[in-house]
């Protein structure tokens, strides 16, 4: 049972949080000089732009996009394979059961969180400065981001493994590598496959926007056509992108069902 005072206090608390919320909204609108009338009128402009300038997609030059599509797929494969190798190494060093030393685990966790929390497009733009425009910065930023992501999820997958098997092997006097080989890896494989496939999906999505900072892939076509104001070609590229992402999602889903 709640007393009247408690109810009153709760009500007060709720009112205060509403007031704070309202204040935050007002402050935000004022700070970026957001005008609702302009915003509301922006929506029709946006939709008009979408449906007249943008659609219908120009289907005539479909074959010319084969090259960027292949590029994007190749980025995805190469980045996923290399990132999964690096991620595995880091993942095993980071997971609680398999880390050689707790200090290594802490240091690597910090390092990986630095990798992950710096946005991917920032990495890509820095790498474009280092390696110049082309496919190299694209792949490297995918690998950089991907290894961070995979190391973390691999480590979590390893930590989730039941400790019975490792304890049993411990009791039998198995060594470090033997434990990994016979207890950790068999239980870890489904997680490994699932996350690696997910990374492939992510890298296809990501390589579609890599082109925006000059790192190749199908995103460069989006930027190119938009810079030339050929919006119906942009919509063709985006349609290709949608189809590609859907097909890959479908395929990875099938592989997952078959293997796990």
């Amino acid at each position, binding site marked *: 049972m709640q007393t009247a005072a408690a109810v009153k206090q709760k009500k007060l608390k709720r009112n205060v949080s509403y007031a704070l919320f309202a204040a935050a909204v007002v402050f935000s609108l004022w700070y970026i000089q957001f005008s609702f009338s302009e*915003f509301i009128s922006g929506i029709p402009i946006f939709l008009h*732009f979408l449906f007249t300038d943008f659609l219908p997609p120009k289907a005539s030059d479909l074959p010319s996009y084969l090259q960027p599509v292949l590029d994007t797929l*190749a980025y995805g494969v*190469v980045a996923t394979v290399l990132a999964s190798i690096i991620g595995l190494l880091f993942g095993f060093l980071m997971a609680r059961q398999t880390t050689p030393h707790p200090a290594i685990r802490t240091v690597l966790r910090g390092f990986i969180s630095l990798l992950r929390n710096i946005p991917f497009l920032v990495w890509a733009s820095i790498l474009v*400065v*280092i390696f*110049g425009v082309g496919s190299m910065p694209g792949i490297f930023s995918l690998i950089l981001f991907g290894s961070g992501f995979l190391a973390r999820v691999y480590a979590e997958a390893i930590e989730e493994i039941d400790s019975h098997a490792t304890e049993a092997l411990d009791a039998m006097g198995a060594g470090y590598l033997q434990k990994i080989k016979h207890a950790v890896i*068999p239980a870890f494989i489904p997680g490994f496959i699932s996350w690696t496939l997910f990374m492939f999906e992510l890298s296809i999505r990501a390589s579609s926007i890599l082109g925006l900072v000059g790192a190749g892939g199908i995103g460069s076509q989006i930027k190119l056509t938009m810079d030339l104001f050929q919006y119906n070609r942009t919509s063709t590229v985006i349609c290709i992108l949608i189809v590609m992402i859907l097909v890959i999602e479908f395929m990875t889903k099938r592989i997952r069902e078959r293997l796990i």
Partner: protein
Amino acid sequence: MKKIRIGHKSTQRQQRWFVGLMVILFFPCFFYLKLDLNQFKDGLHQIPHIANMMMQMSFDQFPDLMDGLLTSLIIAFLTVVISVVISFFLAFVIATNTAPVPLLAKIIRAIIVIIRTIPVTIWVLLAVASIGFGSMAGVLGLIFPTVAFLTRVFSDQIDEAGKDIIEAVKAVGGGWWNLVFNGVTPQLMTAFLASIAFNFEITVAETVILGIVGAGGIGVLLQEYISFYDFKPLTLGILIVFITLFLLEMTTNLIRLRLSGRGHK
């Protein structure tokens, strides 16, 4: 991950399949890309130089960066507020046990799938192309994917909430509005708040980079520094972004923990 034999047969099969697939796909793709070794070497020579410049961190741009960061946060905040309002209603329209018109629900679901397939960055790019540079374009571009995401999450949560409460409201003669506001919402409030917190975290991470395509916020500054080879303030900018995202991740984790703790009571 190469050739580790284990007794378990299906594990072995899975491994062979998957590793084989990876290797078979990797080599043709690798050679297809024709990565230039010289470009790689040149790049490696650049790294110490750039790293050296980045080490000389300068605080001159600190006020500008904080201003950019605040703008980014505000863009994310407004996007989430507007999107929550829209997707709250859309979710009730498409959730299978509350949908007033099943056909409409199906159409909206299909649209949501399409919206979610297009990367967020491209939505913002389109918004920038139609209404010009600035924070408004950022909000407008972000609203589409955010609404799509939240609508799906909310409607899943409504579906999961089960039929009991809906039947109860219907049995006492409550209409659709009663169902939404007196039946489902009070029960799902914590679940909704948790997903909103999660969504805010994602949206902030996105707004930070969206400046790169011209949607205002700290990303614009980062992009400028990079394109002018001005690496001294860049380090500070990256550090600010990193700390912000890190703190945000911790805060939302805390909020979710508290909310779920309260939900279990």
